[in-house]
């Protein structure tokens, strides 16, 4: 399932209002876990974490989403892109290569690959 930008914004706002920024109790962790039983709120949570610079947290969130929704095109794409942002260009390109061009906007994957290569030094092989 893909998200419309409007629904994504709403989901992020809902998430930002409810999720603890720095989990320090087990109940906080439950709240984080709850966010990812739904594909849409899970992806929104990951985007919110990304916007705060919590890239490893966002990756972990997307991996929970992909555990339950392994065919989520958006989660797959965002996961690969986040690997790029943490400078794991090789890992990102390996994941991008598994995605189907037909599932995304024309040229989107190739553009992402190029961006990833340019962002990171010596990425890919």
């Amino acid at each position, binding site marked *: 399932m893909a*998200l419309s*930008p409007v629904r994504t914004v709403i989901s*992020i706002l809902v998430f930002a209002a409810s999720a603890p920024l720095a989990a320090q109790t087990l109940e906080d962790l439950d709240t984080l876990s709850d966010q990812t039983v739904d594909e849409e709120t899970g992806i929104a949570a990951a985007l919110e974490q990304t916007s705060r*610079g919590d890239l490893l947290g966002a990756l972990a969130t997307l991996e929970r989403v*992909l555990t339950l929704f*392994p065919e989520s*095109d958006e989660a797959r794409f965002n996961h690969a892109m986040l690997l790029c942002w943490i400078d794991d260009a090789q890992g990102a390109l390996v994941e991008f290569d598994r995605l189907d061009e037909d*599932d*995304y906007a024309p040229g989107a994957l190739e553009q992402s690959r190029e961006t990833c290569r340019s*962002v990171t030094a010596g990425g890919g092989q």
Partner: protein
Amino acid sequence: MRSPRRTITSLTIASLLASSVLATPAAAQQRVEVGNVASVVGDVTLDNDQLRRPIEVERQQRVAWGDLIETERNSQLQILLLDRSNFGIGARSRVRIDRYVYDPNEGRSLFASFLEGALRFFSGADEGDNSAEITTPAGRIGIRGTAIDMLVGDEAEDIAEDEDFVGSVRSDDDEATLVVLRGPGANALSGVTPGLAEVTGAGVTIVLDGPGLAAYIPREGAAPIGPFRISNGGLARVQDQISPRWARSFEDGGIPDEVVAGVAAAAVIGIILGTRGGGDDDSGPTVDAGSILGGGDNDRCEDANGRPIPCSQID
């Protein structure tokens, strides 16, 4: 007014509770819960010294010192710890949280045993002095602020020995340990601390300080081999071990029929478009929430009911 009888009853109950606590084995009193199971699929069990038999793990199961987590075939889970560090555990794996201490002001200390299978670790909060040490049958991995993948067992052996740098070595398929640093690297978005891992075996330590660098300990008593850059094929196989459901979704050709072009990629493509090309700023790319939300709108296509559809269907 409170009746004397009720007071006596309350005191009796309190006394019974107190004696019950005193009679409980010390280990049971000291169960230190440090995280939860944030996601789980398949057959996963938890065992410890206080349980007669392993229990089935469900989401939000509390995880404590001494708990041994075991996954079966086609199963996986993620454990979130209090500082938001987390373990992604793949199929046919065994991991035990030996000790974990977290103080939001002081930092985090983690000791875990990774006995078999596939494990991914992401560090959590940056604040304070953080350390993590994971022991495997063949060695020890010290972790600082990083994303790291680890395999123990026959898959580690198979993948490592297919790497040109490693080749054919004498390995033990119960002990073989493969470690791959995933990041963050020096070119990560600004504000993200680069990660580092120290892989130790037989008193020899190898430092992994860049994404894609790997080390292999073939057996207990052997020094690590590396660092070497893992091949794309090897990295894909590691990923498949850690996320078996994700990997199988590609094997099954299981792309859903309602696949949508354009919108799916919009959110993060916004980051790309919005954060590159700032030539005067040499501090590296940054994330701008506005660009995340605003990006990719040009690619959005919807049907008459506002549902996203492939743009190719629009005349």
